[in-house]
Protein backbone atom coordinates (compact mmCIF):
# COMPACT_ATOMS: atom_id res chain seq x y z
CA UNK A 1 0.00 0.00 0.00
CA UNK A 2 1.47 3.37 -0.92
CA UNK A 3 2.26 5.70 1.98
CA UNK A 4 -0.12 8.65 2.25
CA UNK A 5 1.11 11.95 0.90
CA UNK A 6 1.58 14.73 3.44
CA UNK A 7 -1.18 16.74 1.85
CA UNK A 8 -3.63 13.92 2.56
CA UNK A 9 -3.19 14.38 6.31
CA UNK A 10 -5.80 16.93 7.26
CA UNK A 11 -4.52 19.89 9.24
CA UNK A 12 -0.88 19.01 8.75
CA UNK A 13 0.99 22.17 7.88
CA UNK A 14 4.57 22.00 6.77
CA UNK A 15 6.54 25.13 7.63
CA UNK A 16 9.42 25.65 5.27
CA UNK A 17 11.94 28.27 6.35
CA UNK A 18 13.90 29.92 3.54
CA UNK A 19 17.23 31.25 4.80
CA UNK A 20 19.18 34.31 3.68
CA UNK A 21 20.47 33.58 0.19
CA UNK A 22 18.15 30.60 -0.07
CA UNK A 23 15.09 29.52 -2.06
CA UNK A 24 12.44 26.81 -2.12
CA UNK A 25 9.63 25.58 -4.37
CA UNK A 26 6.80 23.20 -3.60
CA UNK A 27 3.46 21.96 -4.84
CA UNK A 28 2.38 20.65 -1.47
CA UNK A 29 -0.69 22.70 -0.63
CA UNK A 30 -0.08 22.34 3.09
CA UNK A 31 3.22 24.17 2.90
CA UNK A 32 3.75 27.53 4.51
CA UNK A 33 6.96 29.11 3.24
CA UNK A 34 8.49 31.72 5.45
CA UNK A 35 11.57 33.90 5.38
CA UNK A 36 12.80 36.03 8.28
CA UNK A 37 14.92 39.15 8.46
CA UNK A 38 14.36 40.60 5.03
CA UNK A 39 16.21 43.85 5.56
CA UNK A 40 18.01 45.22 2.54
CA UNK A 41 17.62 41.76 0.99
CA UNK A 42 14.68 41.13 -1.33
CA UNK A 43 12.10 38.40 -1.02
CA UNK A 44 10.25 37.15 -4.10
CA UNK A 45 7.27 34.80 -4.01
CA UNK A 46 5.70 33.17 -7.03
CA UNK A 47 2.45 31.22 -7.14
CA UNK A 48 0.61 29.51 -9.95
CA UNK A 49 -3.04 29.04 -8.88
CA UNK A 50 -3.78 26.49 -11.58
CA UNK A 51 -1.22 23.90 -10.50
CA UNK A 52 -1.18 25.10 -6.87
CA UNK A 53 2.60 25.40 -6.81
CA UNK A 54 4.89 28.22 -5.89
CA UNK A 55 8.19 29.27 -4.47
CA UNK A 56 10.15 31.79 -2.49
CA UNK A 57 13.55 33.44 -2.87
CA UNK A 58 15.56 35.49 -0.35
CA UNK A 59 18.33 37.23 -2.34
CA UNK A 60 21.01 39.31 -0.67
CA UNK A 61 22.91 41.08 -3.46
CA UNK A 62 21.89 42.42 -6.86
CA UNK A 63 24.48 41.10 -9.25
CA UNK A 64 26.24 37.73 -9.44
CA UNK A 65 29.12 38.98 -11.61
CA UNK A 66 30.83 40.13 -8.39
CA UNK A 67 31.56 36.50 -7.49
CA UNK A 68 30.74 33.91 -10.13
CA UNK A 69 32.04 31.00 -8.03
CA UNK A 70 29.65 31.89 -5.22
CA UNK A 71 26.84 32.29 -7.78
CA UNK A 72 27.41 28.72 -9.02
CA UNK A 73 27.44 27.36 -5.47
CA UNK A 74 24.54 29.40 -4.14
CA UNK A 75 22.62 31.10 -6.98
CA UNK A 76 19.87 32.31 -4.62
CA UNK A 77 22.29 34.74 -3.00
CA UNK A 78 22.03 37.08 -6.01
CA UNK A 79 18.96 38.63 -7.62
CA UNK A 80 19.91 37.73 -11.19
CA UNK A 81 20.89 34.09 -10.68
CA UNK A 82 18.34 33.64 -7.86
CA UNK A 83 15.27 34.62 -9.88
CA UNK A 84 16.45 32.41 -12.74
CA UNK A 85 16.96 29.47 -10.37
CA UNK A 86 13.57 30.02 -8.70
CA UNK A 87 11.70 29.99 -12.02
CA UNK A 88 13.69 27.03 -13.34
CA UNK A 89 12.82 25.01 -10.23
CA UNK A 90 9.16 26.09 -10.42
CA UNK A 91 8.88 25.05 -14.09
CA UNK A 92 9.73 21.50 -12.93
CA UNK A 93 6.44 21.68 -10.97
CA UNK A 94 4.57 22.75 -14.13
CA UNK A 95 4.32 26.37 -13.03
CA UNK A 96 3.53 28.55 -16.05
CA UNK A 97 5.26 31.90 -16.45
CA UNK A 98 2.07 33.49 -17.85
CA UNK A 99 -0.09 32.45 -14.90
CA UNK A 100 2.36 33.14 -12.15
CA UNK A 101 1.53 35.73 -9.47
CA UNK A 102 4.63 37.54 -8.25
CA UNK A 103 5.06 39.43 -4.97
CA UNK A 104 8.14 41.30 -3.83
CA UNK A 105 9.11 42.59 -0.38
CA UNK A 106 12.22 43.91 1.37
CA UNK A 107 14.88 46.24 0.03
CA UNK A 108 15.00 48.38 3.20
CA UNK A 109 17.18 51.43 2.78
CA UNK A 110 19.67 53.19 5.01
CA UNK A 111 19.62 56.98 5.24
CA UNK A 112 22.46 57.23 2.80
CA UNK A 113 22.36 59.92 0.11
CA UNK A 114 25.78 58.75 -1.11
CA UNK A 115 24.13 55.44 -2.03
CA UNK A 116 27.29 53.47 -1.20
CA UNK A 117 25.54 51.38 1.44
CA UNK A 118 22.16 51.18 -0.26
CA UNK A 119 22.30 47.66 -1.55
CA UNK A 120 18.55 47.41 -0.82
CA UNK A 121 17.86 49.98 -3.52
CA UNK A 122 20.17 48.19 -5.95
CA UNK A 123 18.45 44.87 -5.19
CA UNK A 124 15.06 46.39 -6.08
CA UNK A 125 16.43 48.02 -9.23
CA UNK A 126 17.96 44.72 -10.34
CA UNK A 127 14.61 42.95 -9.84
CA UNK A 128 12.66 45.59 -11.76
CA UNK A 129 15.09 45.41 -14.66
CA UNK A 130 15.06 41.62 -14.72
CA UNK A 131 11.27 41.29 -14.61
CA UNK A 132 10.95 44.01 -17.28
CA UNK A 133 13.32 42.16 -19.58
CA UNK A 134 11.31 38.96 -19.25
CA UNK A 135 7.91 40.62 -19.53
CA UNK A 136 6.90 39.64 -16.00
CA UNK A 137 4.83 41.94 -13.86
CA UNK A 138 4.79 42.13 -10.09
CA UNK A 139 1.31 41.85 -8.67
CA UNK A 140 2.02 43.30 -5.22
CA UNK A 141 5.08 44.77 -3.61
CA UNK A 142 6.14 46.37 -0.36
CA UNK A 143 9.69 47.62 -0.68
CA UNK A 144 12.09 50.20 0.73
CA UNK A 145 11.46 51.86 4.06
CA UNK A 146 13.46 51.49 7.25
CA UNK A 147 12.21 48.17 8.54
CA UNK A 148 13.10 44.53 8.46
CA UNK A 149 10.28 42.22 7.30
CA UNK A 150 9.17 38.61 7.60
CA UNK A 151 7.43 37.26 4.47
CA UNK A 152 5.28 34.17 4.16
CA UNK A 153 3.56 32.36 1.32
CA UNK A 154 0.73 29.96 1.97
CA UNK A 155 0.56 27.36 -0.79
CA UNK A 156 -3.00 26.41 0.16
CA UNK A 157 -4.26 29.56 -1.54
CA UNK A 158 -1.30 31.72 -2.58
CA UNK A 159 -1.77 34.25 0.20
CA UNK A 160 1.32 36.37 0.96
CA UNK A 161 1.72 38.06 4.35
CA UNK A 162 4.30 40.42 5.81
CA UNK A 163 5.22 41.21 9.38
CA UNK A 164 7.45 43.99 10.73
CA UNK A 165 8.64 44.81 14.24
CA UNK A 166 6.31 47.32 15.88
CA UNK A 167 3.35 46.64 13.56
CA UNK A 168 0.42 44.92 15.13
CA UNK A 169 -0.80 42.08 12.99
CA UNK A 170 0.25 41.07 9.52
CA UNK A 171 0.00 43.00 6.32
CA UNK A 172 -1.70 40.93 3.64
CA UNK A 173 0.33 41.65 0.55
CA UNK A 174 -1.64 39.33 -1.69
CA UNK A 175 -4.99 37.86 -0.61
CA UNK A 176 -5.26 34.15 -1.17
CA UNK A 177 -7.74 32.61 -3.56
CA UNK A 178 -10.87 31.53 -1.80
Amino acid at each position, binding site marked *: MPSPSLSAIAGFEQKLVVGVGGMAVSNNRNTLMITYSLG*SCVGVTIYDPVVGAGGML*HAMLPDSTINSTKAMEQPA*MFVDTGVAALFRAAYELRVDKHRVRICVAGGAQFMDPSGFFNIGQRNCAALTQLFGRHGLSVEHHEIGG*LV*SRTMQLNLANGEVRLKSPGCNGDLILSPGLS
Partner: protein
Amino acid sequence: MKALDYYIDRVKTLPPAPRLLVELLRLLQEPEVDASSIVDCVTFDPALTASVLQRCNSAAQGLAEPVHSISEGVVRLGFNEIYRLVAATIAETALNSPQPGYGIAAGQLWQHSAATAVAARVVAGRLGLEVNQAFTAALLHDIGKLVLSSLLEDAYNEVIRETEQAGHSFLKTEKILLGVDHAEAGGRLLERWGFPDVLVSAVRCHHDPVQANPHKRLAACVYVSDMVAHLLGLGLGYQAYAVEGRPEALRILEIAPRELESLVIEANTALERTEWATQIAP
Protein backbone atom coordinates in the same frame (compact mmCIF):
# COMPACT_ATOMS: atom_id res chain seq x y z
CA MET B 1 28.20 62.99 31.09
CA LYS B 2 26.05 63.64 34.14
CA ALA B 3 22.84 62.72 32.34
CA LEU B 4 24.50 59.57 31.03
CA ASP B 5 25.74 58.47 34.44
CA TYR B 6 22.31 59.19 35.84
CA TYR B 7 20.70 56.91 33.24
CA ILE B 8 23.35 54.22 33.73
CA ASP B 9 22.92 54.25 37.50
CA ARG B 10 19.17 53.90 37.17
CA VAL B 11 19.23 50.74 35.01
CA LYS B 12 18.30 47.77 37.16
CA THR B 13 19.40 44.97 34.89
CA LEU B 14 22.85 45.97 33.68
CA PRO B 15 25.26 43.05 33.30
CA PRO B 16 28.21 42.90 35.70
CA ALA B 17 31.37 44.66 34.53
CA PRO B 18 33.24 42.27 32.22
CA ARG B 19 36.52 42.79 34.12
CA LEU B 20 37.87 39.56 32.73
CA LEU B 21 37.80 40.92 29.17
CA VAL B 22 39.64 44.07 30.22
CA GLU B 23 42.27 41.93 31.93
CA LEU B 24 42.59 39.49 29.01
CA LEU B 25 42.90 42.30 26.47
CA ARG B 26 45.71 43.78 28.59
CA LEU B 27 47.48 40.41 28.83
CA LEU B 28 47.21 39.81 25.10
CA GLN B 29 48.90 43.16 24.44
CA GLU B 30 51.97 42.06 26.40
CA PRO B 31 54.82 40.96 24.16
CA GLU B 32 55.63 37.83 26.17
CA VAL B 33 52.44 36.72 27.72
CA ASP B 34 52.51 33.81 30.13
CA ALA B 35 49.97 31.12 29.18
CA SER B 36 49.23 30.27 32.79
CA SER B 37 48.10 33.81 33.62
CA ILE B 38 45.48 33.66 30.84
CA VAL B 39 44.35 30.20 31.90
CA ASP B 40 44.09 31.27 35.55
CA CYS B 41 42.00 34.29 34.58
CA VAL B 42 39.44 32.17 32.73
CA THR B 43 39.29 29.11 34.97
CA PHE B 44 38.57 31.29 37.99
CA ASP B 45 34.94 31.16 36.80
CA PRO B 46 33.75 27.52 36.46
CA ALA B 47 30.51 28.36 34.60
CA LEU B 48 32.42 30.43 32.07
CA THR B 49 35.01 27.66 31.70
CA ALA B 50 32.28 25.15 30.93
CA SER B 51 30.68 27.40 28.29
CA VAL B 52 34.02 28.17 26.66
CA LEU B 53 34.92 24.47 26.51
CA GLN B 54 31.54 23.73 24.95
CA ARG B 55 32.33 26.30 22.25
CA CYS B 56 35.84 24.89 21.76
CA ASN B 57 34.28 21.51 21.12
CA SER B 58 31.56 22.64 18.74
CA ALA B 59 31.72 21.06 15.31
CA ALA B 60 32.71 24.39 13.77
CA GLN B 61 36.15 24.29 15.41
CA GLY B 62 36.79 21.05 13.54
CA LEU B 63 38.80 19.34 16.30
CA ALA B 64 39.18 15.57 15.95
CA GLU B 65 39.58 15.11 19.71
CA PRO B 66 37.67 17.20 22.25
CA VAL B 67 39.43 19.79 24.39
CA HIS B 68 39.16 19.01 28.12
CA SER B 69 40.57 22.12 29.75
CA ILE B 70 41.25 25.79 29.00
CA SER B 71 45.02 25.22 29.05
CA GLU B 72 44.62 22.47 26.44
CA GLY B 73 42.37 24.85 24.45
CA VAL B 74 45.07 27.53 24.50
CA VAL B 75 47.62 25.05 23.16
CA ARG B 76 45.38 23.65 20.44
CA LEU B 77 43.37 26.69 19.34
CA GLY B 78 45.70 29.52 20.35
CA PHE B 79 45.33 32.45 22.73
CA ASN B 80 43.44 34.58 20.28
CA GLU B 81 40.76 32.02 19.51
CA ILE B 82 40.28 31.31 23.23
CA TYR B 83 40.06 35.03 23.90
CA ARG B 84 37.34 35.43 21.25
CA LEU B 85 35.37 32.47 22.61
CA VAL B 86 35.57 33.96 26.12
CA ALA B 87 34.51 37.39 24.81
CA ALA B 88 31.57 35.85 22.91
CA THR B 89 30.45 33.88 25.97
CA ILE B 90 30.49 36.96 28.21
CA ALA B 91 28.82 39.16 25.57
CA GLU B 92 26.06 36.64 24.95
CA THR B 93 25.12 36.64 28.64
CA ALA B 94 25.08 40.44 28.64
CA LEU B 95 23.16 40.92 25.39
CA ASN B 96 20.68 38.06 25.32
CA SER B 97 17.77 39.77 27.07
CA PRO B 98 14.94 41.44 25.11
CA GLN B 99 15.15 45.23 24.65
CA PRO B 100 11.50 46.23 24.25
CA GLY B 101 12.24 49.94 23.81
CA TYR B 102 13.95 49.02 20.54
CA GLY B 103 11.49 46.30 19.50
CA ILE B 104 14.28 43.77 19.97
CA ALA B 105 13.18 40.28 21.06
CA ALA B 106 15.19 37.95 23.32
CA GLY B 107 18.39 36.85 21.58
CA GLN B 108 18.21 39.39 18.77
CA LEU B 109 20.66 41.97 20.15
CA TRP B 110 23.12 39.17 20.70
CA GLN B 111 22.50 37.84 17.18
CA HIS B 112 23.17 41.27 15.67
CA SER B 113 26.26 41.83 17.85
CA ALA B 114 27.67 38.39 17.07
CA ALA B 115 27.23 38.97 13.31
CA THR B 116 28.90 42.38 13.65
CA ALA B 117 31.82 40.81 15.54
CA VAL B 118 32.26 38.08 12.92
CA ALA B 119 32.18 40.75 10.19
CA ALA B 120 34.72 42.85 12.17
CA ARG B 121 37.05 39.91 12.27
CA VAL B 122 36.85 39.68 8.48
CA VAL B 123 37.27 43.44 7.94
CA ALA B 124 40.08 43.81 10.50
CA GLY B 125 41.88 40.76 9.14
CA ARG B 126 41.75 42.18 5.63
CA LEU B 127 43.02 45.61 6.66
CA GLY B 128 45.64 44.53 9.17
CA LEU B 129 43.85 46.04 12.18
CA GLU B 130 44.18 44.48 15.64
CA VAL B 131 41.60 41.67 15.34
CA ASN B 132 40.86 41.14 19.05
CA GLN B 133 40.16 44.84 19.60
CA ALA B 134 37.95 45.05 16.51
CA PHE B 135 36.11 41.87 17.52
CA THR B 136 35.51 43.11 21.10
CA ALA B 137 34.43 46.61 20.07
CA ALA B 138 32.02 45.10 17.54
CA LEU B 139 30.62 42.63 20.08
CA LEU B 140 29.89 45.46 22.51
CA HIS B 141 29.06 48.28 20.06
CA ASP B 142 25.33 48.34 20.90
CA ILE B 143 25.63 47.69 24.63
CA GLY B 144 24.38 51.23 25.27
CA LYS B 145 20.95 50.01 24.13
CA LEU B 146 20.70 48.18 27.46
CA VAL B 147 20.84 51.59 29.15
CA LEU B 148 18.28 53.35 26.96
CA SER B 149 15.78 50.59 26.16
CA SER B 150 13.51 51.08 29.16
CA LEU B 151 13.42 54.86 28.51
CA LEU B 152 12.14 54.26 24.98
CA GLU B 153 9.51 51.74 25.96
CA ASP B 154 6.51 54.02 25.62
CA ALA B 155 7.99 56.14 22.86
CA TYR B 156 7.24 53.99 19.78
CA ASN B 157 5.01 56.67 18.22
CA GLU B 158 7.63 59.35 18.80
CA VAL B 159 10.31 57.11 17.28
CA ILE B 160 8.17 56.67 14.16
CA ARG B 161 7.49 60.41 14.01
CA GLU B 162 11.20 61.29 14.21
CA THR B 163 12.44 58.58 11.83
CA GLU B 164 9.74 58.10 9.19
CA GLN B 165 8.23 61.55 9.19
CA ALA B 166 11.09 63.88 10.16
CA GLY B 167 13.72 61.70 8.44
CA HIS B 168 16.09 61.47 11.41
CA SER B 169 18.29 58.48 12.08
CA PHE B 170 17.51 56.30 15.11
CA LEU B 171 20.64 57.70 16.79
CA LYS B 172 19.48 61.29 16.26
CA THR B 173 16.02 60.28 17.46
CA GLU B 174 17.47 59.01 20.75
CA LYS B 175 19.31 62.31 21.15
CA ILE B 176 16.12 64.29 20.47
CA LEU B 177 13.94 62.21 22.79
CA LEU B 178 16.42 61.43 25.60
CA GLY B 179 19.31 63.88 25.25
CA VAL B 180 21.77 61.00 24.84
CA ASP B 181 22.24 58.21 22.32
CA HIS B 182 23.16 54.52 22.62
CA ALA B 183 26.66 55.03 21.20
CA GLU B 184 27.52 57.58 23.90
CA ALA B 185 25.91 55.38 26.54
CA GLY B 186 27.90 52.35 25.36
CA GLY B 187 31.16 54.32 25.31
CA ARG B 188 30.54 55.58 28.83
CA LEU B 189 29.74 52.08 30.09
CA LEU B 190 33.00 50.73 28.65
CA GLU B 191 34.87 53.66 30.17
CA ARG B 192 33.38 52.97 33.60
CA TRP B 193 34.28 49.32 33.23
CA GLY B 194 37.93 50.23 32.58
CA PHE B 195 38.23 49.27 28.89
CA PRO B 196 41.11 50.94 27.02
CA ASP B 197 40.48 54.28 25.26
CA VAL B 198 40.66 52.76 21.82
CA LEU B 199 37.65 50.53 22.53
CA VAL B 200 35.71 53.24 24.38
CA SER B 201 36.22 55.57 21.46
CA ALA B 202 35.34 52.95 18.80
CA VAL B 203 32.05 52.16 20.56
CA ARG B 204 31.23 55.82 21.27
CA CYS B 205 31.83 56.80 17.65
CA HIS B 206 30.58 53.71 15.85
CA HIS B 207 27.99 55.78 13.99
CA ASP B 208 30.41 58.63 13.19
CA PRO B 209 33.92 57.22 12.99
CA VAL B 210 35.63 60.49 12.04
CA GLN B 211 34.97 61.72 15.59
CA ALA B 212 37.02 58.85 17.02
CA ASN B 213 40.38 60.35 16.04
CA PRO B 214 43.07 59.02 16.74
CA HIS B 215 41.16 55.72 16.77
CA LYS B 216 39.06 56.36 13.70
CA ARG B 217 40.23 53.24 11.85
CA LEU B 218 38.88 50.97 14.55
CA ALA B 219 35.65 53.00 14.80
CA ALA B 220 35.27 52.85 11.00
CA CYS B 221 35.82 49.08 11.13
CA VAL B 222 33.01 48.74 13.69
CA TYR B 223 30.76 51.03 11.62
CA VAL B 224 31.32 49.06 8.39
CA SER B 225 30.87 45.73 10.23
CA ASP B 226 27.60 47.00 11.73
CA MET B 227 26.41 47.93 8.22
CA VAL B 228 27.50 44.51 6.91
CA ALA B 229 25.45 42.83 9.68
CA HIS B 230 22.44 44.90 8.53
CA LEU B 231 23.10 43.87 4.93
CA LEU B 232 23.09 40.23 6.06
CA GLY B 233 19.54 40.76 7.32
CA LEU B 234 20.61 41.15 10.93
CA GLY B 235 19.44 44.68 11.53
CA LEU B 236 16.69 43.95 14.01
CA GLY B 237 14.05 45.88 15.92
CA TYR B 238 12.03 49.02 15.11
CA GLN B 239 13.23 51.15 12.21
CA ALA B 240 16.45 49.16 12.16
CA TYR B 241 17.62 50.70 8.89
CA ALA B 242 17.29 54.29 10.10
CA VAL B 243 21.07 54.49 10.10
CA GLU B 244 23.06 57.23 8.40
CA GLY B 245 25.36 56.23 5.55
CA ARG B 246 28.95 57.28 6.25
CA PRO B 247 30.95 56.98 3.03
CA GLU B 248 33.92 58.49 4.91
CA ALA B 249 34.17 55.20 6.86
CA LEU B 250 35.00 53.44 3.58
CA ARG B 251 37.54 56.15 2.77
CA ILE B 252 39.21 55.83 6.20
CA LEU B 253 39.61 52.10 5.61
CA GLU B 254 40.42 52.51 1.91
CA ILE B 255 37.64 50.15 0.91
CA ALA B 256 36.25 50.74 -2.58
CA PRO B 257 32.42 50.90 -2.61
CA ARG B 258 32.23 47.87 -4.90
CA GLU B 259 34.29 45.90 -2.35
CA LEU B 260 31.52 46.27 0.21
CA GLU B 261 29.50 43.56 -1.55
CA SER B 262 32.49 41.20 -1.46
CA LEU B 263 32.81 41.87 2.26
CA VAL B 264 29.15 40.97 2.70
CA ILE B 265 29.74 37.62 0.96
CA GLU B 266 32.89 36.96 2.99
CA ALA B 267 31.20 37.85 6.28
CA ASN B 268 28.23 35.64 5.38
CA THR B 269 30.54 32.68 4.78
CA ALA B 270 32.38 33.37 8.07
CA LEU B 271 29.07 33.63 9.92
CA GLU B 272 27.81 30.33 8.50
CA ARG B 273 30.97 28.70 9.86
CA THR B 274 30.65 30.27 13.32
CA GLU B 275 28.37 28.01 15.26
CA TRP B 276 28.26 30.16 18.41
CA ALA B 277 27.04 33.15 16.44
CA THR B 278 24.13 31.44 14.75
CA GLN B 279 22.77 29.47 17.67
CA ILE B 280 20.73 31.32 20.20
CA ALA B 281 20.72 30.16 23.78
CA PRO B 282 17.22 29.25 25.00
